[in-house]
C-alpha cells in the first residue's frame, strides 16, 4: 500500500543541489578540533564537554571550527556566530539570566507564522548574533528522512544561517536557529523553489501537526497516522500560515492509546487510534509466554531479574477492567468490558493484537499550564472511521474552529473555552448528544442550566396569576 503526495514531488538529489565541495565539508582535522579554542573565555560552557552523554558544546565547537575554516565568501552570516553564541551562553550562566531580547516582529511576506524574531541584548560584545531569528521548517510526517534532503538542508542553513538547528522542536518542526533579517526571504525562496518545502506554524495559527510513526514500523497503529497528518496539514495550509485564531491550535495523531506523540496532553485536537472489534488472540503464543519461551513486554524488562513470567499476576490481575481470565488453559477476554488500555497487548505483543475494525477516538482541549492550569484532552467522540480524504474529520474540525473563532477570547485555548462554556455547549456546537464516557462521573451538584425550551410552558410567567394562588 503506497501513499501518493497531493502534488508531484520533484526528487531532490544532493549532488545537484549542493553548495559546498567535499573539500569544504572536510576542512579541518581532528587534531585541529582538539586544539580549537573559541574566541571568548567560556569555562562553564567548556565544563559541559565532559561526561558520557553527547555534548552539545563539543558539537557546536565543530561547527565553529568548520565555519572558521570556510572562506569568508562561502557563507552569508558571520563565521563567528557559533563562537558568539557560546560566549553569550557563558555570560548568561554568569548573570543567571538570559540575554535574548523580548520578541521582534519579523517574517516572510504573506505569512503570519513560521519565523520568530530574536535579538541579542549584548550586540556589541556578540555582533554576529545581533539577529538570531528562528525559522520553523515543517517536518515530513514522523520524521523519516533521506540523506539527500538532510544534506541539502545543511548546506542551505550553513550558507544562509548559523549552521545550528534543532532536530526537532517541541511541536515537531525542524528548527533553524539563527539568521539575520535579510536572509529570511532568501531562505524561504530556496526552501519553496528549490526544495519544495514550506515553513511550519507559529503564533495564533494551526501549528505544524505531528504524528507517531504509525504503521510504518509499529504493529499497534490503528490509523494511518502519517497520511492523516499529511492530508490535514496540506488541507489547512491557510490556517497554518495566516493567523486567524484566538491562539495556537495543535493536531496530533497517535496510532494507539500508548500515545507516543502525547496527543492527549499536547494537542487541542487529539486523534488516538483504537478499535471496536475484539483483540486478536494467538493461544499458542499465549502458551509460549506462559512457558517462558518469549520474553514479556518485548523484552523491555530484561535488564533485571523479575522472576518467571506470571500471566495471572502480570496481565490478568493488572487489567483495569478485570475482563480477562484463563479458562481451560485458554486466555479469554470479555471484549465488551475492555477499555483498550493496551497493557495486555504491550506485555504479550506476539499473542495479542488490536482488532481489525479500526478508527480513532477524538479528544479536545489539551494544553500546558498557561494560563488556567494544564489540561488534558477530554474524550468527546468515541470512534470515527478514518478513510482518506477524511471528510468526516474535516467537518468536525471546522465546526470547532468556527465556534472558537467566534467565542474565543484573545489567547484563549480551545480547552479553556470548553471550560468557560461547559461541555454541554460544546456538544451543541458539534451537534452530538452527551454520553457518560465524557466524564469520570456525573456531576454531584444539581445546578443544571435548564433552558427555557426544556421546561413546559417556558420561563415567562404572570406574577398576578401566581398571586391569585398565593397571597403575599
Amino acid at each position, binding site marked *: 500500500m503506497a501513499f501518493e503526495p497531493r502534488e508531484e514531488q520533484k526528487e531532490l538529489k544532493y549532488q545537484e543541489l549542493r553548495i559546498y565541495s567535499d573539500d569544504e565539508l572536510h576542512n579541518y582535522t581532528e587534531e585541529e578540533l582538539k586544539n580549537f579554542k573559541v574566541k571568548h573565555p567560556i569555562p562553564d560552557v567548556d*565544563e559541559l564537554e565532559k561526561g558520557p552523554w553527547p555534548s552539545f558544546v563539543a558539537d557546536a565547537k565543530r561547527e565553529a571550527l568548520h565555519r572558521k575554516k570556510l572562506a569568508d565568501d562561502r557563507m552569508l552570516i558571520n563565521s563567528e556566530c557559533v563562537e558568539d553564541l557560546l560566549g553569550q551562553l557563558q555570560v548568561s550562566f554568569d548573570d543567571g539570566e538570559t540575554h535574548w531580547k523580548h520578541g521582534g516582529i519579523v517574517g516572510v511576506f*504573506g505569512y503570519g507564522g513560521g519565523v520568530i524574531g530574536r535579538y541579542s541584548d549584548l550586540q556589541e560584545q556578540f555582533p554576529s548574533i545581533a539577529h538570531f531569528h528562528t525559522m520553523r521548517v515543517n517536518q515530513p510526517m514522523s520524521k523519516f528522512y533521506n540523506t539527500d534532503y538532510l544534506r541539502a538542508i545543511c548546506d542551505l542553513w550553513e550558507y544562509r544561517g548559523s549552521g545550528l538547528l534543532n532536530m*526537532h522542536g517541541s511541536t515537531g518542526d525542524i528548527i533553524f536557529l539563527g539568521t539575520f533579517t535579510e536572509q529570511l526571504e*532568501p531562505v524561504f525562496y530556496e526552501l519553496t523553489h528549490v526544495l519544495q518545502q514550506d515553513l511550519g506554524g507559529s503564533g495564533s495559527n494551526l501549528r505544524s501537526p505531528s504524528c507517531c510513526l504509525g504503521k510504518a514500523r509499529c504493529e499497534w497503529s490503528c490509523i494511518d497516522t502519517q497520511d492523516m497528518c499529511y492530508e490535514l496539514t496540506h488541507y489547512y495550509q491557510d490556517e497554518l500560515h495566516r493567523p486567524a485564531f484566538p491562539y495556537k491550535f495543535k493536531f496530533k495523531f497517535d496510532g494507539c492509546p500508548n500515545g507516543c506523540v502525547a496527543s492527549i496532553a499536547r494537542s487541542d485536537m487529539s486523534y488516538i487510534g483504537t478499535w471496536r472489534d475484539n483483540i486478536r488472540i494467538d493461544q499458542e503464543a499465549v502458551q509460549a509466554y506462559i512457558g517462558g519461551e518469549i520474553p514479556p513486554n518485548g523484552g523491555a524488562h530484561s535488564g533485571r531479574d523479575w522472576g518467571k513470567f506470571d500471566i495471572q499476576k502480570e496481565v490478568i490481575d493488572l487489567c483495569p477492567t478485570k475482563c480477562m481470565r484463563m479458562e481451560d488453559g485458554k486466555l479469554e477476554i470479555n471484549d465488551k468490558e475492555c477499555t*483498550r488500555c493496551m497493557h495486555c497487548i504491550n506485555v504479550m505483543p506476539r499473542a495479542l493484537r488490536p482488532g481489525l475494525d479500526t478508527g480513532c477516538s477524538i479528544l479536545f482541549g489539551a494544553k500546558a499550564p498557561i494560563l488556567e492550569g494544564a489540561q488534558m484532552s477530554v474524550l468527546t467522540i468515541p470512534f470515527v472511521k478514518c478513510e482518506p480524504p477524511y471528510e468526516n474529520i474535516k467537518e468536525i474540525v471546522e465546526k470547532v474552529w468556527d465556534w472558537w473563532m467566534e467565542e474565543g477570547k484573545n489567547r484563549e485555548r480551545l480547552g479553556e473555552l470548553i471550560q468557560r462554556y461547559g461541555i454541554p455547549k460544546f456538544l451543541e456546537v458539534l451537534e452530538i448528544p452527551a454520553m457518560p464516557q465524557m466524564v469520570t462521573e456525573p456531576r454531584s451538584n444539581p445546578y443544571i442550566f435548564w433552558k427555557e425550551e426544556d421546561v413546559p410552558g417556558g420561563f415567562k410567567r404572570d406574577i398576578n396569576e401566581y398571586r391569585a394562588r398565593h397571597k403575599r
Partner: protein
Amino acid sequence: MALSTERLGLYNPEKPMENRLTDLGPRHFWQYFPPIIQNNYGKWKYHEILEPGILVHVSETGDKVFTVRCGGCRFMSVEHVREICDIADKHCDGYVRFTTRNNIEFMVDSQDKMEALKKDLESRKHVSGSYKFPIGGTGAGLTNIVHTQGFLHCHTPATDASSMVKSVLDDLFDYFQGMTLPAQVRISMACCLNMCGAVHCSDIALLGYHRKPPVIDHEVIDALCEIPLVIAACPTGAISPAKTEEGKKTVKIKEERCMFCGNCYTMCMAVPLADKEGDGVTILAGGKISNRMSPPQFSKVVVPWLPNEFPRYPDVCAHVKRIVEAYAKDANKYERIGDWAKRIGWERFFEKCDLPFTDHLIDDYRLQYDTYRTTTQFKYTEAAWEVSRAAGGIE
C-alpha cells in the same frame, strides 16, 4: 536546480511578490521510508527489544527490520547532521529517522548489518570524550529528555535547558543504556512555565521558575506595550493601572498576588521577571501520557524550588537521582512513578524519596479542592507525627 549562492538568492526585494510560492506544506513522507518500511507498511506483526537500544520488528511477510536507537541532542549543528547522513549512507541506504523525544533511529534489514552499524555508532566520540551516538533509550529504562531552548535561544527562561539536560543525563547515563527500572521513565524539561516543552505529564518534570514579581520599566511601558493587555494578562488580577510621579501611564503590581507565571512578560517586554537569585528549578513527578492500566496523569510538584547552579546543577541532579532510585527499588514491575506513588500513598512517596513536604506543595490555586484529602485513610509518617506534636496531640 542547485541551491543558490547569490546574496539574496531567488528573492527580488524590488518585487517581493514575484514568483512567490506559498502553501506547499511539508514534503511527502512516503519517499523517505526505506524500502523495507515501504514493503511492510501496515504488516508489522510484533517486535522485540534485543538489547537496550536495539529493536527488531517482524512483519507478516517474514521481513525483519532492525532499529538502533541513539540518544541525540535536540540542539545540533549541521556538522552533526552530516555525520548522521554519513552513517545512514554507509549502513542504511541513505535513510534515517528522528523520534519525538529527539532520539535518532538507524534502520537496517539484517542482523549482520545491525552488528556493523552498532559497532560503528559505539566507536564515534567527540574529541573531548562524550559519545556522539549512545545506544539506548528503550524499554524499562530512561529515554532521552525532551527540552526547550533555554539560554541558547529564548527570551523568557528561568534556567537553562541544554546544560541541565546534559547534566542529568550524564548522571543517569546507565539508566539510558539499561532496562533495569520497573517501567519506562520519561523525564522532560521546560525552562519556564510557558512550557513550550509541555512537561506537565512526565514521570519527572524539570521546570524553570521565577520567584520575584516583575520589575517595571516605567520609562517605556506606555510606548511599547498595550497597558490594558498587560493588565488583562494577569490571571490573579495583580496588575492595575498607575501613573508615575511625572504623570506617565504605567502599571502597579500587588506583589502578594503574583504567582510568577510570567504571562505579563509574554505580553509586554517592560515587565521582566528574570533574576539571578529569584530564578530556579521546580521538580514535578508522577505524570504520564499513556493510557496503559491507569489513565494519563499530570505531574505533581514534589520539590518547590532548587537553585540554578550553572553549569551542572548538582542539587537538581541529586534530587532526580533520589526519586529514580527510590522508585527503582520499591515499585512493582510495570508500575510508572505516578502509579507507584498512588499505590503507596504520596506521604510514603515523600518518605521513601527523602523529600521534605512543605506548604508550597499544597495547591492553593483554582482547583485546590480537588486535591484535598477528605478521608480518614492515611499512613503515619514522620511528617504526620510532627503535625500531631505541633497540635499538642502527642508529646
